[in-house]
């Protein structure tokens, strides 16, 4: 047990593990990004570059991965926490320690998916508890069930991290310090090629078959014109916006006029500004705390809108009946679009049009999730993550700050989103039917394609072959040995040929062969270790 961590460090890392997932579920602060958690753990165990290196690689592997509709994805955050903690104890050189840390982090991330499923199922108990509280008309218990819904989430991360770091770090050291040289080399190569998985997954979500030309533009700017990544991102935005402003738009406005023409009786509203602010904060800070498989964000939504309902329905029976009405399945993007729907529904409840409000919720949650998943999951987050990951791999803490900043931006803009929804009310339907969503999604996905064209070769530039062909040639009667680097030949045909081939191979396996992400991950890990060990890559 020598060389392990004390109970204190284990406890600090466990508390961080608890906080990071709650911060993501609640206000969507991105402490949970691998690069941020890697930095924190690196600072705690006294090896920041290691934490950034492991976190940065995992950050790049998670491009395009987002829990769409509550699907479980590998928990690279916990992987980064445990991997960094374990590798920091080793006596290995920095690059070798990073490879060893990744070798720990990847299996940990995969194992944690089981616990993610468990926490998403256990929270179901809390929504049933809340159902009973509504039946018994017990407001305090109802709030409690929502707020304590965070327990399965936080503990499912904190407990395994605590025991892994406390009990596991010592024994694993023996293994880490005795990794043979060939395996260390193999693991290093694995680290280089794993980001291809993130890019491959991202491409399957993008309309590359239709708009491959945007991808080529990005690639040409990076590979032939050597434009820096920020320049490519700006050019992408400009080109894409010009393209879509030239394209005619189809609208369905007339129909929308009819649907939204429902008469509204002007009545003196019992809802104060303070009630709205309270509801808004509840929504923006806690919506997903009690997220569960059965009804997803329903409990958080009901708890958030409760202050409005209380004023609109002063009679106890009516209030709880209204609360019950909101305890039905609900799920949309928590910070892009979600606050707009919530704001609009608050306005409709205030105007005593619950039926219209319910219909609005049901019909808008899908479209808004589609925008949110595209704008955040496919465009904004991957762009930030690529910059963050590449900064971190160069040892700069700027990468971690960048992801934190993104989280705060998303959180901050939820407030104007809410007021926009509140002012629009049912008028939102007209906005949506103007084709705005399709345009936003088109702009986001084509810009993402353009940018990825430049980012892929940049991030995977380390995928190269050291192979050489030696041949004997006779020069002026003497036997001379000439060596030709295969990489040079590749570069003459097409720069960054190997990185492109790798990413499109991943894309092809996922999209055309319908391999699962896990299968591709295992293939890449095995291929990396073998090709690295034999010095082929």
């Amino acid at each position, binding site marked *: 047990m020598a060389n392990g961590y004390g109970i204190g460090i284990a406890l600090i890392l466990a508390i961080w593990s608890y906080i990071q997932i709650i911060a993501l579920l609640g206000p969507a602060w991105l402490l949970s990004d691998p690069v941020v958690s890697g930095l924190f753990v690196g600072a705690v165990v006294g090896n920041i570059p290691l934490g950034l290196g492991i976190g940065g690689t995992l950050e790049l592997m998670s491009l395009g991965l987002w829990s*769409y*509709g*509550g*699907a479980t994805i590998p928990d690279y955050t916990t992987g980064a926490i445990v991997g960094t903690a374990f590798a920091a104890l080793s006596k290995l050189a920095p690059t070798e320690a990073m490879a060893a840390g990744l070798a720990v982090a990847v299996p940990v991330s995969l194992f944690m998916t089981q616990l993610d*499923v468990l926490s*998403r*199922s256990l929270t*179901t108990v809390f929504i049933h508890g809340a159902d009973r509280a509504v039946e018994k008309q017990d407001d305090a218990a109802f709030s409690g069930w929502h707020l304590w819904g965070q327990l399965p989430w936080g503990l499912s991360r904190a407990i395994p991290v605590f025991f892994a770091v406390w009990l596991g770090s010592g024994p694993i050291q023996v293994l880490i310090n005795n990794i043979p040289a060939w395996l260390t080399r193999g693991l290093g190569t694995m680290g280089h090629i794993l980001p291809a998985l993130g890019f491959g997954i991202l491409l*399957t*979500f993008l309309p590359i078959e239709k708009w491959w030309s945007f991808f080529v533009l990005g690639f040409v700017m990076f590979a032939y014109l050597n434009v820096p990544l920020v320049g490519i991102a700006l050019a992408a935005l400009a080109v894409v916006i010009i393209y879509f402003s030239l394209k005619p738009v189809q609208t*369905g406005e007339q*129909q*929308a006029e*009819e*649907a939204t023409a429902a008469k509204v009786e002007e009545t003196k509203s019992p809802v104060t500004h303070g009630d709205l602010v309270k509801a808004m904060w509840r929504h923006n800070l806690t919506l997903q705390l009690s997220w569960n*498989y*059965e*009804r*997803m964000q329903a409990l958080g939504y009901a708890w958030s809108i409760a202050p409005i309902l209380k004023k609109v329905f002063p009679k106890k029976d009516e209030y709880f009946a209204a609360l*019950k009405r909101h*305890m*039905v*399945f609900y*799920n949309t*993007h928590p910070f892009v679009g979600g606050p707009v729907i919530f704001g609009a529904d608050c306005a409709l409840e205030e105007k005593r049009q619950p039926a*219209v409000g319910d*219909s*609005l919720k*049901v*019909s*808008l*949650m*899908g*479209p808004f*999730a*589609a925008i*949110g*998943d*595209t704008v955040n*999951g*496919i465009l904004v987050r991957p762009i930030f993550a690529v910059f963050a990951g590449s900064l971190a791999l160069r040892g700069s803490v700027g990468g971690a700050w960048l992801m934190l900043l993104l989280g705060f931006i998303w959180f901050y803009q939820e407030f104007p989103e809410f007021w926009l929804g509140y002012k629009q009310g049912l008028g939102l*339907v007209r906005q*949506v*039917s103007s*084709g*705005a*969503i*399709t345009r936003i*999604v*088109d702009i986001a*996905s084509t810009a993402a394609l353009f940018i990825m064209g430049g980012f892929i070769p940049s991030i995977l530039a380390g995928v190269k072959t050291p192979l050489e062909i030696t041949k004997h040639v006779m020069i002026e009667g003497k036997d001379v040995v000439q060596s030709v680097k295969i990489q040079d030949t590749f570069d003459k045909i097409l720069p960054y040929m190997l990185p492109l081939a790798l990413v499109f191979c991943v894309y092809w396996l996922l*999209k055309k062969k*319908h391999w*699962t*992400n*896990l299968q591709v991950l295992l293939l890449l890990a095995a291929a990396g270790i073998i090709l690295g060990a034999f010095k082929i890559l």
Partner: protein
Amino acid sequence: MAFFLHIDNRLIHGQVTVTWCSYYGAKRIIVADDKVAADPIQRIVLPQAARGLPTSVVTIADGLKLLSSMDPAHENVLIIARNAQGALALMEGGLKPKSINVGNQAPVQGTKYVMVLPWIAVTREDAEAFKAIGDMGYKITPQRSGSDRALDLVELLRKKGLL
């Protein structure tokens, strides 16, 4: 090229647009459900969720008419039913999909349901409808995305004692 039947109470949603449309290579979406087609807001808003794919929101009868004018040999079409009964009505109306999947079935308040999987609630009536589809020789999978295991839903229903 083929028709694919997807059963999901959320209709067009992030999982559908981001993963399933790309998984099937769908070029067109048809949401066929009588209740949804009768709601003017849903009829207008749902097509906006489809990331630019042509989308129709129609009753089951109109959906079948629309489908009979299409050739599955030339178009990949994703047909979305809201629940088991809607799916069965489509199948009885002559729909011949290449595959049938259930993405999500949220419990409906006031009904007696069993959570067959954490994201799929089934009542006895639903179970009968799923079984009737199964009896037509189809395997119904309960996947949220292509990464989930392709289990056999009817078999699961039997294990849970719903059939």
